[in-house]
């Protein structure tokens, strides 16, 4: 949490603390295939977020009684490096990261043709090396590229982006201070081609109309992310 609350998060001329317009995303960089050992991997920078994702699988699932005869089991582990946040985070999962891992898995699974890989496991690992706001969305974004890099068959990429409410304004992709002092946060993930929402959360205070507006803005953000994801894959694999 920022140590001192800024007086206002949106300036008189409608700009945000980091100079962005309300519907502007932070700089986004995506790179596919950054690790050698993993079957697929990706690296994402979104603002000051630094995130690595890796995919192992489809691979054998032990113990056997956890296998599904008709599909792959998708597993997801979101983890923060101890040095990724202001105060050192003790290693190991806490309640927040367990919830994020569950929701991220549920955000990616609708996109995967799990039925093509019966009895196997598809393991997705996301390591947050540095956290600004929006790590869960950036993690899903990275994981989705890593899945494609691993050659896992998918209906579509999953793109994720948050919207927020800050000083009464609906803004795209809240950064650290906005997340800490804003009025609401709406992370969203979707398969843009099919118009299917796969992650949606909100906490804070919004009228139903504000919430709908935020969802709309987050979807716009997802489309930007989607473009970058495809560009990253093209860079590695050439034209689609």
């Amino acid at each position: 949490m920022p140590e001192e609350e800024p007086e206002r998060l949106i300036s008189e001329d409608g700009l945000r603390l980091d100079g962005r317009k309300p519907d502007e995303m932070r700089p986004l960089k995506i790179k596919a295939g950054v690790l050698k050992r993993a079957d697929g991997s990706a690296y994402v920078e979104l603002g000051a977020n630094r995130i690595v994702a890796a995919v192992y699988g489809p691979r054998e699932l032990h113990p056997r009684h956890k296998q599904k005869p008709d599909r792959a089991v998708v597993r997801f582990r979101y983890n923060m490096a101890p040095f990724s946040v202001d105060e050192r985070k003790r290693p190991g999962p806490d309640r927040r990261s367990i919830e994020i891992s569950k929701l991220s898995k549920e955000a990616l699974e609708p996109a995967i043709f799990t039925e093509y890989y019966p009895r196997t496991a598809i393991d997705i690992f996301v390591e947050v090396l540095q956290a600004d706001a929006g790590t869960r969305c950036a993690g899903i974004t990275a994981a989705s590229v890593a899945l494609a890099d691993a050659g896992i068959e998918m209906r579509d990429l999953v793109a994720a982006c948050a919207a927020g409410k800050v000083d009464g304004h609906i803004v795209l992709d809240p950064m650290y201070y906005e997340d800490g002092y804003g009025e609401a946060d709406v992370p969203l993930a979707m398969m843009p081609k099919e118009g299917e929402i796969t992650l949606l959360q909100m906490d804070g205070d919004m009228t139903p109309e504000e919430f709908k507006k935020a969802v709309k803005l987050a979807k716009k953000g997802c489309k930007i992310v989607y473009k970058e994801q495809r560009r990253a894959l093209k860079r590695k694999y050439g034209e689609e």
Partner: protein
Amino acid sequence: MDQDLLARIKRHEVLEAIKAGERVDGRDFEEFRPIEVQPDVIAKANGSALVRLGNTQLVVGVKLEVGTPYPDSPDEGALAVNAELVPLADPTFEPGPPDENAIELSRVVDRGIRESEMIDMKSLCIEEGEHCWVTFVDIHVLDHDGNLFDASLLGSVTALHRTRVPKAEVVDDEVEVDETELTPLEVRDFPVSVTIALVDEHLLVDPCLDEEVVMDARITVTVTEEGRICAVQKGERGSLPEHLLDDAIDLAVKKAEEIRGVVKAQL
């Protein structure tokens, strides 16, 4: 094997009912099961409630303990919500620390309480930066027949509405608590969540367990007395078509108002 077969039969029943415009237990798509809320069931707790939502049954107990404020909110009390899915309540629940389902449940309830600002957290400060009340909200599930989210928040909010705070004074840097002098906890909202299951492109309010087993996705929307939204959570392995989201939100806001009335009438 038998289990899988049973699941497939249930799935078939649920889906057949929906095709016929009905639900497997005879309800309308937008109908909650009967709600029964019984406050003050645990004398040892500072506040408590038993909730029955159809066959789903759980107890929520609120305990206040003297603790230390968080450094970033030195003039406020603290809140800790915990849900125990004890193995007594369902054949698939296992003993051990809370799993991802119990943690998701408690965090969604936590956000409903916290973001609605129903508790005046400043009223729980005993001495700034030194001592405060920590409010433990413990959800103890006894019988699981679906929609633990809404039942848990109903129980928690009711228990908090009935919570009484002992007198606490700081004497010589130590907190002295007088359990005999009690004042009601300051609460100023009554957030209610509405969980909607998506089955085969249909929205089913308050899913029972048979419906949860077959649902594609679930969305929980928590609504304040003023009709504002304070928490949303999509869950489960399926996706939610964009065109249904607005309908789900509107439906949730409408039902929240109704449910709040039903519960308040029982207090």
